[in-house]
């Protein structure tokens, strides 16, 4: 079939504006008489704010406002749970915003931010998710969960006991993955202002304009219809722009000062403020029979949610669902956990929880192949999903499962190298 679209090349309409440098990203738009906002962020991972002294900052000519937690009408936001403060009075991670300055120039705003004195009561932080999940460790979000375990998904299939009996070889390993930052090339920026109707207009780069709209309305106490979010060009996102960054803070500053407000993160501020990929610790025990068939998998996956939930529930769900990889295993016990800590909060990032488990299940396959004396390719051919396979979650795959064909096609290219491993 050939149509104007299918089977034809289509040039991206937006490319032209981008190659001429005409495309507007949020840092590229300004309004006359706008204020510049800068956020003061916590250097401590866990602390209570005792007091904030902004006198020295306000003395600086050109400073229009300093806002703190008490200035936020409804001080919470979050994609799944509103567990993240717009401006914190209780700090759960390094980088939590604790005050915001509005000033006539960016330079004045930055200098004023440095003059703000925050008195913290430093609390003991917890960085290790396995330590944090113990029942005796105080919850960082008692309003959500009595312990730091935000989420637990158990998946059971067949009988693990039977699986171990049938296993001729067993491989048991622990795998760990680190935090990863999206490092999208365009740092967060926003322009917020009240229009002639008194509606809040927020121009930004976001993956979630309609969601941002609800979050801004909630925090400011506006009706949904009184907030307009305009998505300008998005300079990369990869999941890192699914959560709110500066949108609410800029809108709040615009509301309090009745001025247009421009905010731009430096790269450093960007690193401190947006989500990260979940670090995961993955305990894997996999058994195979002498014929190379997988018969048992026990997996425990612990994901570090960091200070706030963001998409952790969905991410760890996906890790659990993908824990076997594309391989049929009849006896399975998978437990995945999302755990609060005082690390940077983690959320959406390319793969959304499916990327981390690859390290575990594919490494297990290589180690099992070695133990069985067959090639890494062979063990995959003998176990890969096919039409009719049942996954660990009980789903029967009824169509489009061409992994065996894919492996067969690439076999001639890498077999010789793999055989010599």
């Amino acid at each position, binding site marked *: 079939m050939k149509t104007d679209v299918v089977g034809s090349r289509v*040039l*991206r309409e937006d490319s*032209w504006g981008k*190659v001429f*440098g005409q495309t507007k990203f949020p*840092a590229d738009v300004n309004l006359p008489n706008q204020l510049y906002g800068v956020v003061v962020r916590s250097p401590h991972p866990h602390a209570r704010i005792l007091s904030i002294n902004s006198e020295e900052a306000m003395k600086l000519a050109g400073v229009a406002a300093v806002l703190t937690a008490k200035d936020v009408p409804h001080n919470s936001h979050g994609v799944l749970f509103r567990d993240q403060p717009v401006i914190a009075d209780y700090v759960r991670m390094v980088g939590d915003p604790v005050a915001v300055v509005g000033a006539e120039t960016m330079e004045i705003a930055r200098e004023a931010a440095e003059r703000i004195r925050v008195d913290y009561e430093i609390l003991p932080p917890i960085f290790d998710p396995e330590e944090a999940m113990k029942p005796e460790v105080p919850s960082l979000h008692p309003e959500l969960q009595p312990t730091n375990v935000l989420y637990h998904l158990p998946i059971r299939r067949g009988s693990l006991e039977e699986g171990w009996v049938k296993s001729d070889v067993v491989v048991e390993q622990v795998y760990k993955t680190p935090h990863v930052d*999206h490092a999208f090339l365009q740092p967060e920026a926003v322009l917020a202002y009240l229009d002639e109707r008194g509606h809040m207009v927020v121009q930004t780069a976001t993956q979630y304009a309609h969601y941002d709209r609800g979050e801004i309305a909630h925090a400011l106490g506006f009706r949904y219809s009184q907030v307009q979010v305009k998505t300008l*060009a998005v300079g*990369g996102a990869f999941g890192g722009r699914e959560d709110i960054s500066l949108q609410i803070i800029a809108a709040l500053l615009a509301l309090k000062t009745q001025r247009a407000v421009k905010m731009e993160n430096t790269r450093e501020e960007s690193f401190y403020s947006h989500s990260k990929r979940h670090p995961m610790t993955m305990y894997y025990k996999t058994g195979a029979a002498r014929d190379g068939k997988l018969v048992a998998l026990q997996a425990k996956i612990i994901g570090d949610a960091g200070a706030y939930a963001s998409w952790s529930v969905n991410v760890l769900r996906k890790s659990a669902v993908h824990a076997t990889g594309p391989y049929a295993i009849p006896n399975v016990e998978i437990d995945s956990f999302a755990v609060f800590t005082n690390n940077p909060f983690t959320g959406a990032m390319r793969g959304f929880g499916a990327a981390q488990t690859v390290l575990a299940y594919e490494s297990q396959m290589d180690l099992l192949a070695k133990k069985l004396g067959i090639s890494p390719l062979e063990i995959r051919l003998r176990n890969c999903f096919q039409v009719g396979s049942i996954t660990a979650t009980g789903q029967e795959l009824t169509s489009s499962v061409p992994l065996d064909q894919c492996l067969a096609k690439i076999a001639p290219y890498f077999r010789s190298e793999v055989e010599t491993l």
Partner: protein
Amino acid sequence: MITIEFSVNDKTYVLEVDPRERLLDVLRNRLGLMGTKEGCGEGECGACTVILDGKTVNSCLILAGQVHNSVITTIEGVGNRQSPHPVQKAFVEVGAVQCGFCTPGMVLSAKNLLDKNPHPSDEEIGVALSGNLCRCTGYDKILRAVKLAAEEGKQ
């Protein structure tokens, strides 16, 4: 404050500047040339690339005082919709543009390479673009676009 005189995209400017001001800020905030982007502010990403006296530089690392009597080309000085530069045409044709934030810097690095070396090898293209980061996984297409632009130039 000091007075500097310099040319940007064939136009001469005389400006009073704080010598500590970055060229990037002069271009964006004083001249309104928003095609030059700030990605990192420390010379790592190349989004703020401009051509300064025939050399590509990170404008976030150049101070205003350094550009006195210099000739600068920004993305606004390269091609337009009526007559795009061969590099710009090739970027669109090959699909070497995704989010577009690195694109102005990439185009300038590629243009400057082809101005000096119209028939570069793959390695020379790679070296010329090595100061420009792309995060949308576009390097392969970007390199192909520069090659295409070079081939078009041969004809």
